[in-house]
């Protein structure tokens, strides 16, 4: 019941002032601990910023950083993680990406390792072309 009162609607997200929204979203998170919805609210304000409201640049940076760095990442948070690249320093973002997507990173590393092991035995496109040229010349 209480959560219903503190949730925000689309009109509030796109018409309230940045300072008011900052208070409302922070309060929403403090009372509900619902990190998924809080991230979705912040992403909606990022859309608003890109549509023209420049005062939303880096909006609620502390809360976003707290959610990604110190709480358990939910599926929703992972889904929208890449939209918040500008909230983190590049090395911090890479480390966080490793933490959030361990399987994907393992697969990427494994495939690059396999590729590097195969590269010495894989025929080179250039040499193949040269060989063809040589055979046509003879």
């Amino acid at each position, binding site marked *: 019941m209480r959560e219903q009162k503190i949730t925000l*609607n689309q009109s509030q997200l*796109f018409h309230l002032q940045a300072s008011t929204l900052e208070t409302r979203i922070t309060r929403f998170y403090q009372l509900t601990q619902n990190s998924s919805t809080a991230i979705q*609210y912040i992403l*909606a304000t990022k*859309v608003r910023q*890109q*549509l*023209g409201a420049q005062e939303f640049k880096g909006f609620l940076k502390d809360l976003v950083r707290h959610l990604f760095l110190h709480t358990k990442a939910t599926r929703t948070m992972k889904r929208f993680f890449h939209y918040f690249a500008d909230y983190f320093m590049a090395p911090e973002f890479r480390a966080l990406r490793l933490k959030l997507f361990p399987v994907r990173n393992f697969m990427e590393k494994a495939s690059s390792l396999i590729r590097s092991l195969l590269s010495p035995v894989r025929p080179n496109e250039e040499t193949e072309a040269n060989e063809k040229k040589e055979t046509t010349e003879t």
Partner: protein
Amino acid sequence: MTKLVAIFKTSEGKNHSWSYANPDTTKQPSEVKGLLERFAGLKLFKKDNVVLFDTVESAEYVETIETPIF
């Protein structure tokens, strides 16, 4: 005053109108479409289990000219 007016489809297939005042009109149409699609992708607002912003249909800039008469 210029407004960005967009039509979204709800998850029931009905039209849902949405507007945003004073947008940056210099944005490329593809950029605006991408932003509205990102907003729709949030599936954030529901009413009676119906997603209000499910897919984006169309968008236009609407300029209102007010002429005082007295």
